């Protein structure tokens, strides 16, 4: 049985852990608010970009010579998986759920005889995927969004993806990230960005006689311009969502940790009091029985 001193020390240590986790929880909560606002503010751009692209794609439908980024290379052989995680841990299942989804998808694709490449975005993705899928890994990104995600960072990632695509290094590109549902719930999302899936309802609505758009310069020039932009926008959105999810996940995880630490302290305190009482009783019995023996 642990001595009283050991128990006391243990209580002190759990208390200081609780202080740290509760501070982390509060930091995450304030960061969450900021990240959430940023993610929401970015939605209009992505929505309008999508609408415009839908219109363009609809008017180009059936014509040849559409850019490859929209229609794909025609092949379905090499898949690029972009796994978006955080740089840090201590946020519950946030990172591992992305890693698990990536592994599952990679295994599935490999089984179908396809070639898989993995681009890790975030330190945790690289660390956790390195062991099993190290040979498929290509260079990725770290330290994104330290001070809030900015568009330039998303642009870098998109630039890299499109460079690879132009070099015909892959046919299909999917981004795997945590979509922010609420502060306590994230949803692992697989979004295909190349070839870009044209939203079905947009194609239908705009293909009608309702709006016949004029294009300046031509459809193809605009498309060639807009597609890389759209890629950057999609990546940007994924990064923002992931950032908000990370803070949400960390907040929940730290909240749980704080609560567990509290429970542990209570249990330890009871144990401490009982053993202290037991020791006192024992001493009393010793004194009394010593006196009686005389």
């Amino acid at each position, binding site marked *: 049985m642990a001595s009283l001193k050991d128990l006391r020390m243990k209580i002190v240590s759990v208390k200081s852990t609780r202080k740290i986790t509760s501070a982390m929880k509060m930091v995450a909560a304030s960061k969450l608010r900021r990240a959430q606002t940023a993610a929401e503010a*970015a939605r209009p751009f992505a929505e309008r970009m999508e609408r415009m692209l839908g219109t*363009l794609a609809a008017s180009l439908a059936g014509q040849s010579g559409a850019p490859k980024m929209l229609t794909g290379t025609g092949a379905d052989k090499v898949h690029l998986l972009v796994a978006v995680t955080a740089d840090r841990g201590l946020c519950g299942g946030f990172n591992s759920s992305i890693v698990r989804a990536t592994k599952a998808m990679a295994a599935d694709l490999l089984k179908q005889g396809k070639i898989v490449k993995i681009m890790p975005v975030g330190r945790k993705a690289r660390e956790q995927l390195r062991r099993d899928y190290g040979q498929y890994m290509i260079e990725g990104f770290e330290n994104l969004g330290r001070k809030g995600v900015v*568009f330039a960072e998303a642009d870098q990632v998109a630039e890299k993806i499109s460079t690879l695509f132009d070099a015909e290094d892959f046919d299909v590109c999917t981004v795997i990230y945590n979509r922010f549902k609420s502060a306590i719930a994230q949803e692992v999302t697989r979004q295909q960005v190349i070839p870009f899936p044209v939203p079905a309802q947009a194609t239908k609505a705009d293909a009608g006689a309702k709006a016949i758009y*004029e294009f300046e310069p031509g459809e193809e*020039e605009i498309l060639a311009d807009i597609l890389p932009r759209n890629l950057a926008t999609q990546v940007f959105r994924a990064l923002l969502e992931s950032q908000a999810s990370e803070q949400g996940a960390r907040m929940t995880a730290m909240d749980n940790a704080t609560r567990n630490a509290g429970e542990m302290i209570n249990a330890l305190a009871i144990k401490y009091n009982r053993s202290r009482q037991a020791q006192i009783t024992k001493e009393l019995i010793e004194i009394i029985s010593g006196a009686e023996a005389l």
Partner: protein
Amino acid sequence: MADKIQFELVSPAKLLVSSPVDMVVVPGTEGDFGALVRHAPMITTVRPGVIVVHDGGKVSSSIFVAGGFAEVNEERITVLAEEAIPVGDITAELAAARKKAAKDALDDAKTDREKAQAQRLILIAEALEAARH
């Protein structure tokens, strides 16, 4: 003029402007164009330059954009801009700094892609400088 056109200026980070105005003059790649209500639907690319918003018979605001896309239809004009700065906020230092950064990028550029990128930055910086006058 009772009818107004809904003008929306959106950057990747947020919705910057969304208000009904009389007319918007946008620097399209193939020339500036003014969009009023009931404009024929069109989609165009936007070159770096200044968007001038006319409302109530005068220029209500002018905003510099570093390129992007514009979609016009009967009741709405949406401009997707990568970057937008109100013209009043542009300073000589800002323009000069941007230009220098762009030139440095061109000097450092190795691949064609990087060169094209730097070339584009220079165009933006020049447009920024011109917008000040």
